[in-house]
């Protein structure tokens, strides 16, 4: 706080490179361990320790019971210590590949990285993976801590060999500095005090290096940018726009532009607390008031009027995948980019990166802990800047719409096209006009269920009935569409997602044309049915779950597909070797193995009235 600055760093590297021990050592030597905490470690060391009679300093950091029992680090721990020059926040990150997302969590807020290497093992795949993630997150300065030098007799040749092999690997990672230090976290060599056992090393100790490194700053003068977090309207006389300055500075009287609307005004006041201030800089949380009454909401960005960032809805981005469920192109996710949350999807996976060599590999999906380059498409244009230019405006996360879990961490490289180039053709004869002419409310009735559950039978009955009532209808049927529009698609998960995406959009166009559209598709995945639902206004989309047990469907086997699948001739068949995710809250749930198709049809008809 105040006069001394803060440096945030992580320790990373492979399993058992001694990360937790090193932090324990830093805390211990900086006198940041209280006596009662040290006594607790001494007691714990007898139970869980790996250092015989000595206190196991790693236990200062591995705070979870499961970690202490297994002697590993599962999740990132944040610890604090200070020297007279500065305060440090250190994130001790786990080395296991399984917990890479926790390592990425620590790296995303770090200024610098201390990459540990076990002198006996040298550069490992995990060392390379972590180094790559560190570089991806934009960390430019690293310390290469070659640890456990005591176990290789403080050999200078071992040290030099590891350093040169790391440098050869890190060539394309664009680190601005790599300081290699030979040390022993366990015994303290070159951590705080220069070691007498490495007379051949004349560089800094780890602590003196950490004390002298500059915290990462976005450097230089940047134009003002502030995403609006919250609109503060306590009464009619006050309308403030709160947020944290992402880049640049702002002063009373400055002209600002609101994006994406493009409205312009001047800063009337900068409110922080009871006193107003004249000026605010990068990183400050403030409330701005403007001269004019403008319509501004959360997710808009206030920017310097004379230097505006771009607005776009499609990007190339680097993406770290963090979920056991693989990334599927076309599947809708929730995207959070600065204060904006909106729908989006990865339209293309361009390639994934080999963690060892950095070479580009062709990929149809991204699996847990993989890094890829993708094209991201959003449901509306957003204000952004490339991650390398402006981290707060270029970083995003992907959230699974079903589980609400954070599944991807992304960094925007550049926009694929400017949104300003793709104005929607504005049409004077609109959806409402067309619907009126047809005397009906256009809707989409979406039948989902196993093959043989009776979707098409019921849809056909319904269409006949609606037709008799002089309604304008159309049926989109799975089998028929696969003969035409979607004949290029197979039955893998990726193709099934694309299949549904196309059908959903066709159905949307048809309702815009005024029709009542009956979609009859197995559509086994919730995420894609949600995608379809999201295209329609509330109430215009009816999800009808045609529910018959697998046994009944298989018994019917109208198309002979179950038999074929059982013989192994039809891979990825829903219900047999591919999952069917039943709807959680369909508008209608029909038990087609108990009710007649006619009765089922009547129930839909009632819903439509």
């Amino acid at each position, binding site marked *: 706080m105040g006069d001394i600055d803060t440096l945030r760093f992580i320790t990373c590297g492979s399993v058992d490179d001694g990360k937790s021990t090193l932090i324990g050592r830093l805390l211990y030597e900086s006198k940041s361990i209280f006596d009662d905490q040290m006594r607790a470690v001494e007691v714990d060391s007898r139970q869980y320790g790996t250092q015989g009679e000595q206190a196991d300093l790693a236990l200062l950091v591995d705070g*979870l019971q499961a970690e202490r029992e297994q002697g590993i680090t599962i999740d990132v721990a944040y610890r604090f210590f200070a020297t007279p020059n500065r305060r440090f926040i250190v994130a001790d990150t786990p080395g296991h590949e399984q917990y890479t997302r926790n390592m990425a969590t620590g790296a*995303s807020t770090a200024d610098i990285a201390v990459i540990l290497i076990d002198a006996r093992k040298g550069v490992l795949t995990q060392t390379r993976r972590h180094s790559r993630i560190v570089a991806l997150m934009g960390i430019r300065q690293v310390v290469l801590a070659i640890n456990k030098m005591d176990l290789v007799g403080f050999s200078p040749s071992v040290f030099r060999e590891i350093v040169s092999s790391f440098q050869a690997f890190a060539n394309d990672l664009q680190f601005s500095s790599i300081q290699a230090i030979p040390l022993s976290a366990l015994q303290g060599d070159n951590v705080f005090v220069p070691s007498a056992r490495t007379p051949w090393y004349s560089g800094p100790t780890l602590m003196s290096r950490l004390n002298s490194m500059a915290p990462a700053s976005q450097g230089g003068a940047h134009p003002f940018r502030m995403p609006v977090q919250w609109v503060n309207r306590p009464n009619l006389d006050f309308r403030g726009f709160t947020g944290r300055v992402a880049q640049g500075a702002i002063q009373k009287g400055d002209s600002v532009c609101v994006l994406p609307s493009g409205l312009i005004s001047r800063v009337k006041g900068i409110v*922080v607390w009871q006193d107003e201030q004249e000026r605010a800089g990068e990183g400050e949380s403030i409330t701005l008031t403007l001269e004019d009454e403008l319509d501004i909401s959360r997710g808009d960005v206030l920017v310097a009027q004379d230097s505006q960032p771009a607005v776009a809805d499609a990007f190339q981005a680097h993406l770290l995948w963090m979920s056991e469920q693989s990334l599927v192109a076309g599947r809708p996710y929730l995207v959070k980019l600065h204060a904006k949350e909106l729908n989006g999807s990865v339209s293309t996976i361009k390639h994934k990166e080999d963690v060892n060599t950095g070479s580009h590999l062709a990929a149809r999906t991204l699996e847990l802990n993989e890094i890829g380059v993708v094209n991201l498409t959003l449901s509306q244009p957003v204000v952004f800047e490339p991650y390398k230019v402006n981290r707060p405006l270029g970083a995003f996360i992907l959230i699974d719409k079903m589980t609400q879990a954070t599944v991807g961490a992304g960094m925007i490289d550049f926009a694929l096209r400017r949104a300003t180039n793709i104005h929607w053709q504005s049409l004077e004869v609109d959806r409402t006009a067309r619907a009126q002419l047809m005397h009906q409310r256009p809707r989409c009735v979406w039948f989902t269920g196993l093959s043989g559950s009776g979707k098409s039978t019921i849809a056909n009955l319904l269409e006949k009935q609606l037709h008799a009532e002089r309604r304008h209808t159309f049926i989109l049927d799975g089998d028929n569409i696969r003969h035409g529009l979607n004949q290029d698609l197979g039955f893998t998960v990726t193709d099934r997602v694309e299949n549904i995406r196309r059908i959903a959009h066709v159905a949307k166009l048809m309702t815009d044309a005024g029709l009542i559209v009956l979609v009859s598709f197995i559509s086994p995945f919730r995420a894609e049915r949600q995608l379809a639902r999201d295209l329609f206004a509330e109430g215009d989309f009816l999800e009808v779950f045609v529910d018959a047990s697998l046994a009944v469907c298989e018994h019917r086997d109208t198309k002979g597909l179950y038999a074929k699948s059982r013989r192994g001739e039809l891979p990825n068949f829903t219900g047999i070797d591919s999952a069917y995710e039943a709807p959680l809250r369909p508008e209608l749930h029909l038990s087609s193995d108990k009710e007649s198709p006619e009765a089922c049809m009547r129930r839909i008809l009632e819903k439509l009235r």
Partner: protein
Amino acid sequence: MAYDPLESESIEIIREAVAGAERPVMLYSIGKDSSVMLHLARKAFYPASPPFPLLHVDTTWKFREMYQHRARMVAEAGMTLLTYTNQDGLAAGISPITHGSSYFTDVMKTEALKQALNLHGFDVVFGGARRDEEKSRAKERIFSFRSEGHRWDPKNQRPELWNLYNTRIRKGESIRVFPLSNWTELDVWQYIQREAIPIVPLYFAKERPVVFRAGTWIMVDDERLPLEVGEKPQTRMVRFRTLGCYPLSGAIESIATTLDEIISETFHARVSERQGRLIDSDQPGSMEKKKQEGYF
């Protein structure tokens, strides 16, 4: 005033949590961390009042001076204060003295907190915990996800990248938000001084009636503290580094009567502030277990 990254980060966190919440609430425990958190919330939404109520889970065993301070601060902030006491526990006469700290905390704090959250349907709950306090807290996210039943799963936390906090939850789930995650005890004291934040007088050294128990000084705050055989209250110059229920909060001997002296004492302290908290050490991995059950 110079830019304070800790303060700005906390304010950003508070605003982000509120923007993503349907029914937010701030846990207010009257202590110094709560006082700082409340101050930050007031700054985040100034000139409006913070758009959420305060919730005090009252075990009924707080120091008398804490109740006085609570009344004063709620009036000053112009916010709604909800208090909640586990009525079953109260009726059963659950006391930290006769039932032990572990059972008492479970019934009157953890259980009470869960009851209060369920009663009001709060989905986002602010707490003043700091990562430097305790080893399992050092592991916790700023936005800490709780499953239905308020359980914390330390082995499967959501990744939390940059300042992009995922506030999405399903029905019945909730999020605990810790705006002071990256603050240390010293940061808290320096901020209290700089911002002139009112705190409970028990933090300042004064001659108080105490007895020496389980290696620490326990204050005789009212007649409910039964004296053990041979125990006689004595007057000592003491103060508290943390405040909880008075039979469970140990005082330290100190002559620090000003903020400057407290800061200097904190800077040179050789034992942790939670050492005086008996509930941290009543079983191994104690705090982690309590947190898994829903404790803050």
